[in-house]
């Protein structure tokens, strides 16, 4: 990335005793689709609201294209926000909602109308201009909220859980839509979500937060493949994690010898789809052995839960193995488990 569009440095914020942000550093590039991912209460909303101007952090800086944002009141910042609940003005029509920003900016009426019409067309709401928010479906409301935010041509659009109010099916569709629109309007998006699948499938880069701090910022595949630490590894995707001490070619884990893996640290992470499982035959010998506890088919793949012999994962849960299609394994089968050194990561 050359010079980033948004530059957050050392941002800290409190609510009374609660330390909501503890020195957050972050860059968002021009035209980037950036996601903030983390468990509930980790400070995502606070960070977004600090950028928008609804919270005033005590320390740190926020710059947008070189301009100090913290010095401006919310209504003068060149960023816009799409609220979780959409926050559509219930007493105004779609048209008036979308035109609210341009009108406040003092644009002439005709230009307001022209811009509004163009954006309404972009989001596919033509024909609904006169409706009130109460007369729209959930998906349509979301589009109004988006239109209202992008009509102001902000440099950066902030979206707080934009899809969480939708039900699962509509949601998948809206994810695609949002991504398409971001391409089309060419504005940087910063999206808050606590749904990892959503973050991974939509964003160019993802910041994983926990407890007011950024744990890792990376592209989705990188996060999955190379988690920076145990927290990220556990939070992103399903994983099997073992604790041990460094050893050559892997991690020495009590009761299991050395498990193969690469990297430095106390934890070894191996993804379910990277584990091979096979019925134990007298000759074969895997990395670990175990007994099948349960198999669960969920359309397309089967997850096999295996109780490993002589060793435990850090979570105490069975080891998970994902196989495409169906599995012929039965509860109680004795199995061998194996993976190659290159797919398992050792992290802090």
């Amino acid at each position, binding site marked *: 990335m050359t010079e980033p569009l948004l530059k957050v440095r050392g941002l800290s*914020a*409190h*609510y009374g005793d609660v330390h*909501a942000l503890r020195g957050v550093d972050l860059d968002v590039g021009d035209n980037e689709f950036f996601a903030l991912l983390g468990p509930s209460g980790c400070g995502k909303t606070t960070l977004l609201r600090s950028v928008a101007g*609804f*919270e*005033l*952090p*005590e320390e740190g800086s926020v710059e947008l294209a070189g301009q100090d944002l913290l010095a401006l009141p919310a209504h003068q910042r060149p960023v816009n926000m799409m609220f979780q609940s959409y926050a559509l003005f219930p007493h105004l029509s779609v048209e008036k909602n979308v035109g609210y920003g341009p009108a406040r900016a003092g644009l002439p009426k005709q230009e307001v109308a022209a811009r509004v019409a163009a954006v309404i067309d972009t989001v596919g709401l033509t024909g609904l201009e006169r409706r009130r928010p109460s007369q729209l479906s959930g998906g349509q409301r979301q589009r109004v909220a988006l239109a209202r935010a992008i009509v102001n041509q902000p440099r950066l659009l902030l979206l707080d859980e934009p899809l969480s109010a939708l039900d699962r099916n509509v949601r998948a569709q809206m994810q695609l839509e949002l991504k398409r629109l971001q391409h089309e309007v060419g504005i940087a998006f910063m999206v808050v979500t606590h749904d990892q699948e959503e973050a991974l499938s939509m964003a160019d880069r993802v910041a994983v937060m926990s407890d007011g701090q950024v744990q890792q910022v990376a592209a989705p595949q990188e996060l999955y493949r190379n988690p920076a630490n145990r927290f990220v590894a556990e939070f992103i995707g399903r994983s099997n994690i073992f604790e041990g001490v460094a050893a050559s070619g892997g991690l020495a884990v009590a009761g299991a010898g050395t498990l193969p893996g690469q990297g430095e640290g106390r934890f070894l992470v191996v993804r379910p789809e990277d584990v091979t499982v096979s019925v134990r035959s007298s000759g074969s010998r895997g990395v670990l052995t175990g007994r099948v506890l349960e198999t669960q088919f969920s359309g397309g793949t089967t997850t096999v839960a295996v109780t490993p012999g002589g060793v435990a994962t850090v979570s105490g849960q069975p080891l998970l193995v994902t196989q495409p299609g169906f599995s012929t394994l039965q509860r109680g089968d004795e199995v061998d488990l194996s993976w190659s050194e290159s797919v398992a990561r050792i992290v802090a």
Partner: protein
Amino acid sequence: MRRSGLGFLWVALVGCLLFLYVPIATVVVTSFNSGKSALNIKGLSLRWYGELFDDPDLGHALLNSLTVAVGATVFSTVVGTMLAVGLVRFARSTVLDAFVMAPAILPDLMLAIGLLAFFTWLGLPLGLGTVTIAHAAFGTAFVVAVVRSRLVQLDGSLEEASQDLGAGWATTFVRITLPSVAPAVLAGALLAFTLSLDEFVIAFFTNGPDSPTLPIEIYSRVRFGVTPEINALASLLLLVSVVAVVAGAVAFRRTERER
């Protein structure tokens, strides 16, 4: 972290509280006047509180008010709760709702003259009985309002769950519906009670000659002049309402926390 930017609104808030409390404070302060006037203070004493307690008419009036309030409250609570359940569970209809709520919305004066005309037409002797009926009329509407809003929020599947678990219709009402809305029933009863105690206009029209309620007694006294005895009475009533409001708020908070 967030700004509380009340700005000039502080002035409005404090000004409003002064506006609300200065007149009341004046009444309280002059109730301790040792002189005979409620207007200029001669010295401090509890003289008027003494006179207040020696005044049998006020005692009777208070007793009359309590009699009416208790009667009206018991009736309003029972009938109002049943009505609320009926309206929410069995007969949802805006027309019926409006009909039942009418006495709470109608101007007092309208209800007062209506009832006066009606009681007279029936030849019913005016007295505490007629006042009680009149107070039950609007009290019922207020109980319905309070209980209904709770019932509407109440998950209808609670009652279904009860039936599913083998309880018949009556058992369900007694064991599930009623306990679930009990706080609202209590709140409705309290509201009906306080409204009745304070009510003047309707009582003024529907009461007979020989048993004034407390507000009527206060009214005739205020018309006959300003004496510190009224101030003493006012101060005591104020004390009672403050205690009641505070106790109510504390109790409310406690039940909220339990939810």
